[in-house]
């Protein structure tokens, strides 16, 4: 029995290690290539650099202001995620608990947004952003990203709110609770674990987007990471070493930042769910 258990463990850990290797190999190859001269990248792509060559980093750092790219990306993403969670959970609450005129129409109106690429509306969107005077302003991105994330959030949250046990709500209503109290004390605690899912699904496209910054952001001080990287990659595509250095600079801090916060982050997703 014990032997079998050890064997099982061995298999499980092997699978974990293989997957960890799969995760790290591209990252390893990116980082080591960023430290090699171009000719070594061609001839010995796999090996560890025999001398640390920092020329690529020098070039990449002179051209790109990565600190600013990071701050901007982080600000835009954080504000968008927070506001989407607050705004959509409120709306999902109203749509999922109460019956009112236009409820179904309203729900499908929101749902339509899940599936249409917002890019198509870019010309009209440009008019809107200009109308609000938000050209070259990070708030343009925050509003657009919030708008494009709300449908997905509603799509996930509304059915969950609808599944809140009716007896609970009835009981609260008999006690004379207001809709605000029902939201805060009954509905919110139940949907809270799923808010983490909403947060991740909001975070991803926002963190990745380079189309809207490309159109709405003009000054270097307001560029986000994907736009900064896409702009620089065009300049360095023939210079492998610098290209890899730039990709490393742009991705490693985010990875480290995530690893530091991973405990809180993933606990938010999984542990929260247990209470639900």
């Amino acid at each position, binding site marked *: 029995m014990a032997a079998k258990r050890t064997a099982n463990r061995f298999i499980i850990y092997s699978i974990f290690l293989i997957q960890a290797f799969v995760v790290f190999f591209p990252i390893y190859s990116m980082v080591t290539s960023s430290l090699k001269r*171009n*000719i070594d990248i*061609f001839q010995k792509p796999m090996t560890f650099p025999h001398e640390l060559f920092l020329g690529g980093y020098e070039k990449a750092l002179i*051209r790109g202001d990565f600190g600013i790219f990071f701050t901007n990306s982080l*600000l835009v993403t*954080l*504000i968008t995620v*927070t506001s989407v969670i607050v705004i959509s959970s409120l709306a999902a609450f109203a749509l999922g608990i109460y019956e009112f005129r236009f409820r179904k129409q309203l729900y499908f109106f929101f749902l339509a947004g899940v599936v249409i690429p917002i890019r198509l509306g*870019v*010309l009209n969107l*440009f*008019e809107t952003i*200009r109308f609000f005077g938000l*050209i070259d*302003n*990070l*708030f343009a991105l925050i509003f657009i990203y919030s708008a494009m994330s709300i449908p997905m959030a509603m799509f996930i949250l509304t059915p969950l709110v609808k599944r809140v046990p009716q007896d609970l709500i009835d009981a609260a209503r008999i006690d004379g609770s207001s809709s605000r109290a029902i939201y805060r004390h009954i509905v919110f605690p139940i949907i809270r674990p799923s808010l983490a899912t909403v947060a991740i699904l909001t975070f991803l496209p926002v963190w990745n987007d380079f*189309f809207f910054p*490309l*159109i709405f952001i*003009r000054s270097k001080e307001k560029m986000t990471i994907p736009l900064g990287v*896409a*702009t620089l990659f*065009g*300049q360095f*595509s*023939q*210079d*492998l070493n610098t290209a890899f250095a730039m990709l490393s600079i742009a991705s490693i801090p985010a990875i480290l930042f995530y690893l530091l916060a991973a405990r*809180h982050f993933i606990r938010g997703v999984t542990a929260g769910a247990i209470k639900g």
Partner: protein
Amino acid sequence: MKQKILALAVVFSLVLILTACGSQETPPPNENVTADNEPITIRFTTWRQEDVEMWGRILVEFDKLDTNVMVEYAPVVDTEYDSVLKTNLQSGTADEVIFVRSWDAGRALFDAGYLEPITEEMVPNINDFASAQLASWQTEDGKIYGVPGNWVAYGVLYNKDIFDDLGITPPATTDDLFAVCSTLKENGIIPIAGGSKDPWTLEHMLSDHFLPIFYDGEVGHQKLLSGEFLPTDSEFIDHLDFLLKVRNECWPDGFEGMGYSDTQQLFVSGLAGMFMAGSWEIGVFEGLNPELHMGYSPTPVLKEGDKRWLSITPAGAFGLNANLTPEKREAALVFINWLASPEGGKIQGDVLVGQFPSMPNTTPPDHPLATEWVAQQGDDGENLTIWWTFQTLNAQEPGAGTLSNESLQALMNGDMTSEEVAQHIFDGIVGWYDPWK
């Protein structure tokens, strides 16, 4: 719980900071109250991100003139340039000076009224430009909507060290080309750095480059436009067969996975002997490997004695945004006039090596390879021929660009035959291009 409150507090303070930053920003200065000595800033937008550093050096020269005009170089990711520019033009937020693509793509901007026609009053030497240079930014009734900036040409770049070591000379004819390829191959060198992953390189650097030697350059090009010569004719199919032979005998293994920058790296690192190059490549290659000894050789011809055509395209022109305040318009014209002057042209030609300035009376660039390449155009540009895929045949979809991109890649990867490619290109264009019907 405490942690959550803390996290919320952090987020909200960030929001506050950002809002505060936003509101502290001073409103943009009203252009009308600008004092005389305060510089007027204008922006020049292009798709040439690669040239950021070079334009920095050109603009330093412009600043020395002390014109009261400050220019900012504003490149956009090249693949996104057209959509970003269109969006900005329509909402009135486009930059003052606009790099305009040649032929059909640029014409659409002018037809929609977003570019101001350039007259002699605005740019006094506009009519001194060679007509071949002006043609791609000129309407049928003679209106000009861009000051020609530069043009690029095709030819062969070879690695001098390798050729000297093996005692071979650059190929003069296509037969020579294949002989050279086999010598290089025997010596373990990739003959031509080529690949088919980026189809636009097949369109421009192979088809646009080599079709002229088959259909007698500009003579054939004009026949193609008028419908006297069609892609289904034997010369066109011969040129496709030739490209296939180049692929078979001169390209490296795994060419299907090699994109443009991959092939550039192959050549620059000395692993390949030749590169079917655009002239702008001189600057790129020298920047990547200053120790590389390159030689230029004109496009090989079919047989000794054939006319040596130089396949070119005008690349971009300086256009003037039609919706500017008088101050900005004046400032933009100051800049455009400098760009159009012989001095401005000279600096552009020297800094942007291989992007040949279109300005009249410009002395040749201080670069032996570039000078050799430009000289190939002959007296009064008699050897010049324009890329077949760029002019007129690309005005609608499916156009020569889309059709040749997709079918040439299929040809190289063995999914289509030469005859099928020719038919595919003809079928696509004949649907909307009347002279071919």
